[in-house]
């Protein structure tokens, strides 16, 4: 139960992935499918919040969707700055979206928060006939790069809750280092933060 949890974590989670990979469908499936007593959720068009109870902690996800079109790529750092977690989404029926996902992974590794929990989601897993990206290939890639990997389907809900639950679990275990704030736009370091960091 959320009310008995002794650790409250606010976690900014950023969604990255090619346009049409199903980022927001995935989140909507998660946000709408959860019900936690006394906890509000937000269902916007591009911003979502939802709370999950795991072990001894309550994790409130603040989910930031990003525009996947190539022309907005350079804006992404403003969104992932200060994020405690990221889900990088690709479409298993689209090889290009997998290549794009790898780019995101590299970029986050180079510029993101080193404690960031990263998940790779091969979405549209229901489209087996149209599969272009082998699950094994993605699994190997994820292992080599220290991510965890799941194939998901927003349509059938396969693994949707699981991926968020796994992130929540990892966040509750992370010993947080001081986190850069989620809101530094003008390159000003701020002391306050609303990210994963909960007092240890």
């Amino acid at each position: 139960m959320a009310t008995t949890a002794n650790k409250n974590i606010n976690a900014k989670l950023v969604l990255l992935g090619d346009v049409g990979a199903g980022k927001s469908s995935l989140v909507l499936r998660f946000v709408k499918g959860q019900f936690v007593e006394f906890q509000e959720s937000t269902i916007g068009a591009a911003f979502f919040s939802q709370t999950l109870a795991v072990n001894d902690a309550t994790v409130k996800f603040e989910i930031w969707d990003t525009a996947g079109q190539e022309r907005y790529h350079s804006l992404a750092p403003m969104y992932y700055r200060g994020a405690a977690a990221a889900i990088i989404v690709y479409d298993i029926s689209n090889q290009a979206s997998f290549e794009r996902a790898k780019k995101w992974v590299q970029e986050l590794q180079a510029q993101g928060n080193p404690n960031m929990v990263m998940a790779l989601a091969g979405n549209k897993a229901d489209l087996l006939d149209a599969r272009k990206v082998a699950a094994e290939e993605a699994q190997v890639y994820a292992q080599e790069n220290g991510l965890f990997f799941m194939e998901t389907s927003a349509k059938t809900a396969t693994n949707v809750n699981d991926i968020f639950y796994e992130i929540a679990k990892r966040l509750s275990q992370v010993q947080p280092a001081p986190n850069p704030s989620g809101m530094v736009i003008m390159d000003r370091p701020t002391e306050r933060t609303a990210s994963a960091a909960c007092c240890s």
Partner: protein
Amino acid sequence: MDTVASQSSSSSSSVMFYDFLDKMRNPASLNLVKSIKSFIVSFQFSSANPENDSKRVQEFFSTMEAAIMEHPLWAGATDDEFDCSMEGLEKYIMTKLFSRTFAISPEDVQIDQEISEKIHMLQSFLRPEHLDIPPFLQNEASWLLAEKELQKINAFRAPREKLHCIMSCCRIINNLLLNASMSENHVVGGADDFLPVLIYVTIKANPPQLHSNLKYIQLYRRQEKMVSEPAYYFTNLVSAKSFIVQLDAKSLSMDEIEFEESMQAAKLDCKVSQLEASQAQTDPLPSTRMHGMKTNIDGRSNYPYMEAEPGELTVEDVERLLSLYKDVVTKYSNLCRAVRHPSATRTGPSLPVPKGRDDILLQLEGQAQMIREEKAEVSDTPKGC
């Protein structure tokens, strides 16, 4: 004129502000008032430095937060009441320090102007398709509402209220997207749809001092409030601004040559209007100009509603406003076409622009004449020629 949302918010924000002022008038809060006043005074004696100023203000908010929390006047206050007092404090401090903290550096003023000019140029040719905005999201009425929210940003001085304008704008777009996904049975597009619409709306709105407003909110809004949904929407507008600043031929779904030509034409258009504006300003006796031209220079005397207040308008005015609107649009599109024409063909080596302008001026003159005749028929206009 105002939307319901912004009315209710501004009334609730004034309630919380008066509540704060009331508490400050209470003799028990004398020590708080003293700290606030001495903080404001201390600001007047130091030179402006946005980074440092922001740090000082944010630290002061934290200090005051602690002081208020322990103050007997707030004993038993709920979190909401306490938060209201902090919002009141932010508004009070930042209203007092506004002229010292907003758009203070010449660089910021310069950036504001550059952004505004670039947006002005983009407005002349940018269409939703250039940002791949799907037709089911092209809702002019809803966009107009969102634009108006952004344009209100300079009506406020408190960072919270400025941020609220951004929030209202984004919520309108948010609702448009949600409605579209429900009624049209489209897959939810999320940020893939949200950001392009916000960029387009920002370009249409050309909000005043965009860069300075964003910087001011970033620096002076209470940091603990710059999280979650407000932070998300704020970040979106910052990224929209950044996209617009970096925007070049490759940023749009548009032929690169067409883009360059449109920008050139818009630049020329800009220069023409700047020239006219400066002529109008420097000419001491505009009435000595050639007959029929003077009304065109600043354009205002043709448009009797320029000084009108919303309350003065009657239903009859709508028809008149519509016809004036059509005139303005016709003139503007003629002007654009005429200015673009010589630069697109590039045939005549001998100053094609002045020739083009002669044509436009002739056209404008004709239209001005028509308007004057029309105007004579309308008796109840608030201002005459």
